[in-house]
């Protein structure tokens, strides 16, 4: 084989790699297009669900010229247009809701715990929102900045809380799971606890977290539940990942002079990455649902709370658009985050067969 042949083979491999990447982008685009086609068909005037499902773009919004008149029966604006219009600040919400800010309540101003939490999270002024349904408004009323009425800040709060919960849970789960390899007593203590709570469906446990932590400290409720759930999952995944490392590899490391520390660093940590990363994907996918669910259950700020509010206001013209928009946002968010995670995981596991197939 001449040098030219080698170069030809390399060039061919590069072309093949490029072709696969372009193909995967096309497949993703086709998937997104199919999603919107299905949505448009379901929302079309001849669809039996026409009254409940708003079109993605609607007769109002950036695509009004194209879609004007197509939607016939549905009178609301398109879900995406609604979402976009209410993202930064929402006049609709400002009119409909009275926002209270317990953080600025005289009783809370000097509460160091709340101050620290609020300051750290940067959410002091987003605080709590409350719905008033005609009765006397909760006290004290504080006029919040306009952005507090928009969807964006609520969704951001949810995302940050869920990511913090997932990160804390991952750290805790990995720390307990991997340390139990070195200290068997940790496993003896933690495994029965994890097994007990692991068998209880976490969605059933969610209301208890709302009761225990209350809606007064929503940070603790959302982050606490997501942390708890992620800790359990990551504990089991890290244990299983470590147990799946072949005994021969660990013994080989021992005979090469490996110390517990070096074996942990160079064997267990990298060797468990594929399974732990897979577990993290599963944990995070569950965490989105869990975080939003706990907000729907009573936490008064966040995307789940918005869903709850619009659920109460289901008779309103904008309600279907708002609900579909919020649900679609969370679905899209989970897909995007998962895709980013997948790329990171593929990089971290480029030494494996999966990495080889991706040409990393």
């Amino acid at each position: 084989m001449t040098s030219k042949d080698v170069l030809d083979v390399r060039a061919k491999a590069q072309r093949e790699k490029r072709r696969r990447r372009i193909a995967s982008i096309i497949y993703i685009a086709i998937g997104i297009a199919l999603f919107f086609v299905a949505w448009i068909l379901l929302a079309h005037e001849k669809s039996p669900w026409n009254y409940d499902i708003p079109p993605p773009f609607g007769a109002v919004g950036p695509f009004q010229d194209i879609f004007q008149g197509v939607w016939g029966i549905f009178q609301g604006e398109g879900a995406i247009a609604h979402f976009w219009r209410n993202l930064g600040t929402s006049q609709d919400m400002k009119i409909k809701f009275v926002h209270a800010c317990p953080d600025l309540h005289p009783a809370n101003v000097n509460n160091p715990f709340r101050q620290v939490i609020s300051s750290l999270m940067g959410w002091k002024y987003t605080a709590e929102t409350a719905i008033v349904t005609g009765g006397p408004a909760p006290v004290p009323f504080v006029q919040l900045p306009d952005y507090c009425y928009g969807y964006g800040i609520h969704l951001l709060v949810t995302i940050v809380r869920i990511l913090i919960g997932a990160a804390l849970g991952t750290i805790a789960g990995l720390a307990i799971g991997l340390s139990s390899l070195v200290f068997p007593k940790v496993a003896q203590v933690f495994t029965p606890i994890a097994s007990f709570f692991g068998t209880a469906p976490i969605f059933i446990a969610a209301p208890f977290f709302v009761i225990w932590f209350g809606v007064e400290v929503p940070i603790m409720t959302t982050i606490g539940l997501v942390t708890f759930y992620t800790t359990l999952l990551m504990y089991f995944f890290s244990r299983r990942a470590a147990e799946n490392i072949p005994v021969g590899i660990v013994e080989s490391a021992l005979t090469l002079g490996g110390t517990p520390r070096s074996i942990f660093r160079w064997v267990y940590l990298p060797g468990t990455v594929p399974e732990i990363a897979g577990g993290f994907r599963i944990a995070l996918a569950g965490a989105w649902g869990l975080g939003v669910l706990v907000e729907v259950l009573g936490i008064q700020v966040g995307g789940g709370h918005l869903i709850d509010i619009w659920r109460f206001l289901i008779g309103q013209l904008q309600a279907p658009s708002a609900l579909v928009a919020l649900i679609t946002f969370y679905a899209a968010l989970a897909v995007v985050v998962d895709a980013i995670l997948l790329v990171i995981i593929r990089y971290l596991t480029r030494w494996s067969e999966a990495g080889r197939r991706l040409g990393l």
Partner: protein
Amino acid sequence: MSRVVSFEGLWCVFEHRSGQLVNALHDVNFEVQPGEFVCVVGRSGHGKTTLLRVLAGLQPPTAGQTRLGDSVVEGPGADRAMVFQQDTVFPWLHVRENVEFGLRALKVDDAERERTTAHWLDAVGLTDFADSWPRELSGGMRKRVALASAMAVGSDVILMDEPFGSLDYFTRRNLHDVLLDLWEATQKTIFFVTHDIEEALILADRVILLAEGKLVDDIPVNLPRPRDEDIRASSAAVDITKTILAHLGITEEEATQV
């Protein structure tokens, strides 16, 4: 500094789940001088690997002890690096990092670690593959990585548990040459477990024969090196083969039929 390896009254008894006791090693006593190449030969399940694992410190004996010089073996250590039958190269580390693993664990400084790693990669012919992933290498090349990793930590004794058993004939022959070159260059003591008599004839100074956990013979292999086909077909070599076969309970006719 090479040291004498001695096995003193070594017993290793395993209890099966059924409650049955199995004597994997049965009062094994022998000594190995520094720089010897010892092949441990025997049938499957007759204690070869157990003997090696006891010496590696991976398996505590039921009675007796193993000594390396004046020290009693009480656990695994870099002075007895082992090359395993299965693939134990770390797949998540590049070839270079695999060879560096033991040196890192031993806290060898960066410059010395790089120098030692480069030396052993060159010695096994893998310099050009230093930055490859193990998955990119053939089975024989991965065995070379394992061999370089074991050599790099500076062990007095290298333990090899049927390391080339899964390789094809030609690759195995090639690795025999590599191993013998390294052994002659370093004069390390090598314990090599095999059930392949031809492999033992190619490599060993001495063959330790195990049957049902007992040391049944200790055969010196005084054949000139390199041991090509002609030497292995010599009457001295054939006599050794016959002795081994007889101990393994296989007659010459049976061996021919096999």
